[in-house]
């Protein structure tokens, strides 16, 4: 990690944090996923539905993340767009066992991608097909097809199966995100 740290210091953002927006429908597992990224002694046993938003900090691949966990309740989804401007990356969490609401997730993602603050920006998009351990859970490729991810052209995206309760699969996704942010352009600073 030492070399990467030096590299990121050399890139001029050793101390700077990258802002990541964690989005997804209610009960898709956003807060649980962030909980799994914490140090084991800081984890909470039970997560309650998030109201408004909460902030988390974690590090991966030499990049220090500041993650905004935004409420996914239908009435709060309109507030997502307030965070778009400052986001350097987006983590979109999908409940892969909730077949019914995959269309809702797709609709919300289309709204996200079409928003003026997001459209055309090269913001890495990481999709977690969460709850992969649940019965009837769809495979990540099926989720990707249901979300029409192949249509996304202006952003690098990656989907991976995860289980936020056990933490499986999360590290892979976050590593991809860190690599994207490191290799990609220096995040444009929006004031």
């Amino acid at each position: 990690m030492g070399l990467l740290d030096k590299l990121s210091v050399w890139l001029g953002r050793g101390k700077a944090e990258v802002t990541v927006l964690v989005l997804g429908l209610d009960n898709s597992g956003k807060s649980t996923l962030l909980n799994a990224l914490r140090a084991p002694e800081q984890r909470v046993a039970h997560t309650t539905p998030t109201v408004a938003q909460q902030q988390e900090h974690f590090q991966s691949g030499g990049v220090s993340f500041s993650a905004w966990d935004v409420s996914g309740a239908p009435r709060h989804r309109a507030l997502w767009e307030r965070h778009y401007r400052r986001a350097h990356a987006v983590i979109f969490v999908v409940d892969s066992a909730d077949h019914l609401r995959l269309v809702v997730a797709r609709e919300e993602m289309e709204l996200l991608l079409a928003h003026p603050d997001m459209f055309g920006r090269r913001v890495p998009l990481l999709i977690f097909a969460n709850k992969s351990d649940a019965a009837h859970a769809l495979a990540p490729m099926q989720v990707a097809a249901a979300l029409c991810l192949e249509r996304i052209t202006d952003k690098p995206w990656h989907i991976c199966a995860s289980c936020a309760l056990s933490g499986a699969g999360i590290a892979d996704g976050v590593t991809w995100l860190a690599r994207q942010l490191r290799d990609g352009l220096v995040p444009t600073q929006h004031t």
Partner: protein
Amino acid sequence: MTRWLDVEVGTDDIDLITLPSNLALVDLQNDNEFKLVVGDLGRGEEGPKLKVFKGAMQISDTILPDLPLGVVGFSINESMPRSVPLIAVAYSSCVYMYRNLKIFYKYYLPSSELNMCEIEVWKQLTNPSYHNIESLQSLTDSLGAIPHKLLSPQSQNLLDLTPDQQLEYLENITDVPSKKNAEIVCITTLKLHSIEREKSVCILKRDWPEGRILFNTDEHIIAVEVVTADNSVMVICADNTLACYSKKGKKQWCLTLEHRPVAMTLVPVLHLGVTLTAVALATGHVHLYDGKARRDTIFVRDLVSVMKFGQLGQEEHVLIIVTGGGNLMLKILKRTADFSAHAAGVQLSPHAAGGQRPWLIPKKSKLFLEQSVRERENAVSMHQTFQHELNRLRLLAAKTLLEAHVKSDNSIGIGPMDSLRLTAEVEGLGPVFRVTLIIENTSKEKAVIGLAILFHVHTINYKVSNPYIKVPLLSPGGKLKFPTKIEEVFDDQINPDVLFRPVTGQGGERSLVKVLLVKEGKTTPILAATVQMPPTDPMMLPFDKMQAAAGLESNEDSNWFTKT
């Protein structure tokens, strides 16, 4: 743009034949994940079943003993944490309760005793000696004499048969009808805490004597829905109409549909504050109406058999459609959907107002009637009073205008000098006051030069230490303060009214000081402000003049006395 998201449902093994009352949305496992419970009537040799869907996926299948007529989910009590809800399935004369999809309670409706004549007739009918055409004829005639609705279903069946069939039926019969079972027509839940509303929408049939007939329709009714918000009743009829009746049975409006309606459901969208009425037509379209106005149209490509709207899974706004082919369709309302008239872009259809009450004119209230009577009786005096008040208003306006003209007061400049502001502060008890004038340049670009302040006072009343102040250059956004001393002058004959000014609060014309802001080369002042000077405190009045005034006063008094 569509307002609905389509959920893909595997169509292969879902084959539903059901009634509108056989659909229920129940939070079966108490996990805030609503399941769709369907009482399926069955097809062919497959018997009726109770099917449970989680989202679009069937998760359970229970065989039912009879054709279900209604399925309702309810919880026993409102205590928290909630107990697992029960499902009640109504059959022709009994209700079965299911808990965790297992039979938990059976309830048979109380039966009523048969008519005595009917029992007598049946005693004879079961006797083999009467089993010939002639005696049967007289017996069925006596059965027919009993009002049809009082007969048991068995008697009713018998009367429908031909004499030969009747004989055959009686040969094989073993049990005599002794009781009449009440038939369930519909089932619903009554919440214990809710205020019970009179849901007497008893339009069961036109010749039904029980229940209160709320209203009659010209044609057969296809579906009825009660709007909970205002208790109005929506009805679709076989003559292609959608009609709205008030809770008192008064027809409020009626509109003609393009095609035959087949199903109807209410679509309450709480966050938008509207309750839409979804009407499915035989053409495969579903129209959504807000009152009379059509707000949206969905094309479902198939004949709709049953529709229901409510929470399914964790999604609050799901429209569930069971098609005539037995398919299940799920449509989720988009979060961004808007059903306002503007968004829908749909005008009232031309037939909407056809013949019905087009205007809602409120009744003439008592207040209105009284007022109109008064107006007729006192027309002249009312007119005069009005004219009088109008003239007073005009006079007041003219006075105010004159006052403004006389004072020529404008503390904010106009035209090219509109960025200047002049304010004044007065400090002190008197007779010497400190008046601070503040000149502010609110412009962001322009500086002002060549300004001067001129005090305009009556020299009898006030003495200004320097009545003409030259103002230096005022930078953009700058502010300058000019303190000046103004002394109130009292002549030798002090007016005693001066002593009472703090009490009466009136300085009159005397206490006005005019401040003018002038600019070089301009004939009119840029700004003018009038400062109302506070009255001098009586304790601060010059003592000698006070005495002089007092002496004068006494002299005057004595003079007056001497005169009289």
